[in-house]
């Protein structure tokens, strides 16, 4: 079942936890509020230290729980608390057309399709579940390896390419 190092590093029980998306979205909500509260102080105290602390925490925590790929623009709560970057095609807007009849991945047949799981889990998420219908902008590849939390707090991850945000003609 574990075909890569990144698959193998997952904590035992992480699947169990991911199948409780309603709990995870609560934790996400609390974590966001807490970070918004402490981040200004952290930043004043030592911006580099804050960055190192957050990157480290994310790499270890989200890495082992969600198999986080450190894309630096986390949308876990919009995709059923299932990391879309673990999809071999990095799809952030829904499943591809290659999903197998048993719901497994086209590329890694031993694994469930990330988006089959994301869709199911989003259905039991009262707070952020509906965000699965949002159109996600192209990934900013230059944020790879940076802290998604800092990017969120600084508003960096909401910046889309200038052409993307233009109003669309009817």
């Amino acid at each position, binding site marked *: 079942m574990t075909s890569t190092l990144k698959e193998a590093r997952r904590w035992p029980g992480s699947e169990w936890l991911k199948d409780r998306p309603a709990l995870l979205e609560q934790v996400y909500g609390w974590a966001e509020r807490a970070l918004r509260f402490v981040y200004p102080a952290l930043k004043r105290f030592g911006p580099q230290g804050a960055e190192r602390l957050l990157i480290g925490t994310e790499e270890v925590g989200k890495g082992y729980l969600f198999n986080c790929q450190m894309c630096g623009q986390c949308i876990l709560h919009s995709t059923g608390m299932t990391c879309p970057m673990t999809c071999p095609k990095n799809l952030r807007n829904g499943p*591809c057309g290659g*999903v197998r009849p048993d719901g497994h991945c086209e590329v890694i047949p031993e694994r469930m399709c990330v988006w089959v799981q994301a869709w199911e889990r989003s259905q039991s998420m009262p707070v952020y579940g509906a965000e699965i219908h949002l159109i996600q902008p192209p990934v900013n590849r230059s944020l790879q390896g940076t802290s998604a939390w800092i990017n969120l707090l600084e508003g960096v991850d909401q910046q889309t390419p200038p*052409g993307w945000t233009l109003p669309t003609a009817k």
Partner: protein
Amino acid sequence: MITFSERPLRANSRLERVLRSGRFAVTAELNAPDSANPEDVYRNALVLAEVCDGINATDGSGANCHMSSLGCCALLVRAGYEPVLQVSCRDRNRIAIQGDLLGAAALGVKNVLCLTGDDVSAGDQPQAKRVFDLDSIQLLQTTRTMRDQGVFLSGRKLSTPPKLFLGAAENPFVPPYDFRPLRLAKKIAAGADFIQTQYCFDLPRLRTFMARVRDLGLDGRVFILVGVGPLRSEKAAEFMRSKVPGVWIPDALVERLTKTPAKQKAEEGKRICIEIIEEVRTIPGVHGVHIMAYRQEETVAEIVERAGLLPRQATLDLPRLDMKQWRPVVA
């Protein structure tokens, strides 16, 4: 609700005109050759052009390397045919794709199908780097931005925007089934004007999908062409459902082919395809069929004819072709 004919013309392509006129459209898939000879493209296209309103040139289908979709489309335009450029996100990043879209429009291509693309592992060069810089929905919106706003994704201005009729794919036949119609809604929101689906061999599943599409009010907002194709034998069916990503064939169909005597299998496969087309035509919200006859393009004309889909209006204004030069005859 705005009816189709009241919507602005996107590219005024032949395919778009047929769909807007409310006629049942037929498109077909052209298999790009493993060759640098234009005649190989024309030989495949010739049997399709007379019986369909648009010819899809595949972009490395199944992640196998063939002549590029843009190359095929350029040749088809030169002959006066109506190509649909397939753009997959597998092999090119956003810079290359936007450049290709401009090039395609400049060459006279008016229809584009935006795809995610089969993974490299399905093809003959699984060691290749997969790109997937954009996904199909981001590609759709990027193309629409270029067409309607006249800018690149970066916001830089285009002096002449590409006029393109935008297509997307959908696969109602694989999980997560209840998310598929909602994903279709996303694609429409991102700019899809028409949809070509994966092979349909499961009519009940299509009916369920289309019922949900109608409930969501999507049938009046996008043209849907259902993918169909003939199966040569039960072996071909087994191959397709095990090796081609995203193809779902129910056991009953495979059994029907198994029970058919060897010499009549191909005929039975065509008959199944025609039956499916006839059923698909009766489903509200379906605007056409997309015929994919892998390495048996010659069967497409027969299928179209026997399904009662001739004459094709769009082909009436086809230029006469000089068979030696592969160029339209100038009157």
